[in-house]
């Protein structure tokens, strides 16, 4: 007979893991919400962030979280360039064209990373990687807690940015109705660039989070992209609150699935949930 105490560990780990998924999914959700473009390269951009942290910690001895001081601006600028020179043209043609271009970018990053960093599995070792906290009967790996805290900070920051700043409101306006926004004096082209830049900065943060938690290879982007899609579908495309709750549900169902059905049940449970949600409510639990 399963007691509640046995479930305490998968439940807490699930929620904390959900935090990591939220950060990964947030950039994807933002780009979709604003530009209606599915950025298939997002998973690989996250892994690129992981490699950046890896280089920073192995070559320069920087703490991965501190390395974000360089990583976030770098990724932001890269995002603006990618949007300006690659995505924007395709985006004007059609949604399919943009999708195919991001698919190409994904291949370029994946295989470029493989050339530069070899296909070996990497991980970030810091002083706190193997630490864990003991609360009651539950052992909490510290990195999971770090992921969760980062997720909460990032979600709150993005939410406040979109709500309170002029730029954030412009992004929200352009995502709701780009033509009307243009009439109000907003330049959608500029807004799209900044939105994509922010999504890339989020990918840098997600990359550090991921690298602290799991080992990664150049090909790790695709499974996490698919997880991020799952999270977004559960929560509803383009909804910030939905993404957060979707991430929690996904993380929870993964650890509980693993608890009851063993390692191969881990991802099967959340993905079946995704398919069920898609069938019943194609716009997601919190989608409009």
């Amino acid at each position, binding site marked *: 007979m399963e007691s509640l105490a046995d479930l305490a560990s998968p439940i807490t780990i699930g929620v904390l893991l959900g935090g990591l998924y939220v950060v990964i999914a947030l950039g994807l959700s933002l780009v*979709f919400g604003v530009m*209606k473009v*599915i950025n298939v390269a997002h998973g690989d951009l996250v892994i690129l962030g992981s490699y950046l942290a890896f280089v920073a910690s192995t070559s320069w001895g920087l703490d991965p979280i501190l390395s974000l001081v360089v990583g976030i601006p770098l990724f932001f600028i890269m995002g603006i360039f990618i949007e300006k020179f*690659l995505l924007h*043209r*395709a985006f*004007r*043609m*059609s*949604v*399919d*064209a943009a*999708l*195919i*271009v991001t*698919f*190409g*970018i*994904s*291949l*370029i990053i*994946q*295989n*470029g990373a*493989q*050339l530069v960093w070899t*296909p070996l599995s990497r991980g970030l070792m810091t002083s706190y990687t193997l630490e864990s906290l003991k609360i009651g009967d539950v052992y909490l790996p510290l990195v999971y807690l770090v992921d969760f805290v980062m997720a909460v900070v990032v979600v709150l920051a993005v939410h406040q940015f979109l709500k309170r700043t002029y730029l954030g409101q412009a992004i929200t306006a352009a995502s709701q109705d780009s033509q009307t926004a243009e009439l109000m004096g907003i330049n959608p082209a500029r807004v799209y660039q900044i939105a994509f830049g922010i999504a890339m900065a989020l990918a840098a943060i997600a990359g550090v989070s991921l690298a602290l938690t799991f080992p990664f290879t*150049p090909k790790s982007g*695709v*499974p996490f992209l*698919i997880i991020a*899609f*799952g999270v*977004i*579908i559960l929560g509803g*495309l383009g909804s910030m609150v939905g993404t957060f709750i979707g991430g929690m549900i996904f993380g929870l169902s993964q650890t509980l699935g693993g608890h009851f059905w063993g390692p*191969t*049940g881990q*991802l*099967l449970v959340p*993905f*079946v949930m*995704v*398919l069920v949600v*898609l*069938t019943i409510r*194609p*716009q997601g639990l919190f989608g409009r």
Partner: protein
Amino acid sequence: MQTTVRRYMPLISLGAATVVLAVLPKTGVPQAWLLYLFYFFLFLAAANMWNLLAGYSGLLALCPAAFIGLAGYTMTILTWLDIPFYVGIIAGGAAAALFAAIISPSVFRMKGVYFAIGTLVVPEILRLVFLRWRPVGGELHGGGAGYMVKGMSGVTAEHRYWLALAIGVASIIVIGIILRSKFGLGLAAIRDNDATAASAGIDVFRLKLYSFVIGAFVTGIAGAIFYSHQGYIEPSAGFHIKWLMTALLATVIGGKGIEGGPLVGTIIVVILHFQLARYGELSLLIQGIILVIMMLAAPQGIMGLVRDVRKTGGVRALLRSVSRGRIKARQV
């Protein structure tokens, strides 16, 4: 007389090409050529079907890997049950088609990009299912370890070459028939505007379902033939995103929504595939760059470019009209 000849010209040239390609193994050409052609036929079938879905039916289906993996598994598992592999190939196509029919009510509820995401998740779920499921062979086989294809003794590379040729040619004929029928007309109407198509009395769901099932069947058969060549199947490779990549790249390079597009695109993809194979990851890197450049420079693909050149009367006329901005980048 002249018009009749012209009308049947594509059919005659297809027939002639098929005959030439069919006798090729008997003329003693290098084995490597036959291998290139084997891949070409299978990729062509997958690309033609992806073109049917994405180019003509408005279904940006990102799940060819699901059809290929499922058909490959069906064929392989049937060979374990002592059923000949050629029966398994048909059964594989049928299993893929059945699967397409089963998932269609839920995936067709999603429109546009939602459909694309939903179908992208499908192969991943199948991969996870097949990681758990061991239908035959006990604990030592199946799951992550995959299955060997049994009962292939006596089947030569030539046999598989002819099978591949058959499905490649069949995919061209299927597309040709569909596009010249009322069904194809309905599909074109749906792709352009499904609300208008529905109001004109077209059963949108049924037409999409038909093309989804036909696409799954032919793609599945190509996949099953591929695994009869590979001799081994496991979940990660069977449901791998590279299947989507191949079909998508061939279609986009050649020209999406153009009948001859996949044919031209597949030639280029197969050349790239083998010429770049020795460079490993550089190969896919270059394919990625080609895909991006192609999409930005010639969103209509090579055949689209050829069509534009013909329409405007020569390359220089086209360049002139582009610089004057008369031809805008058209909808893909």
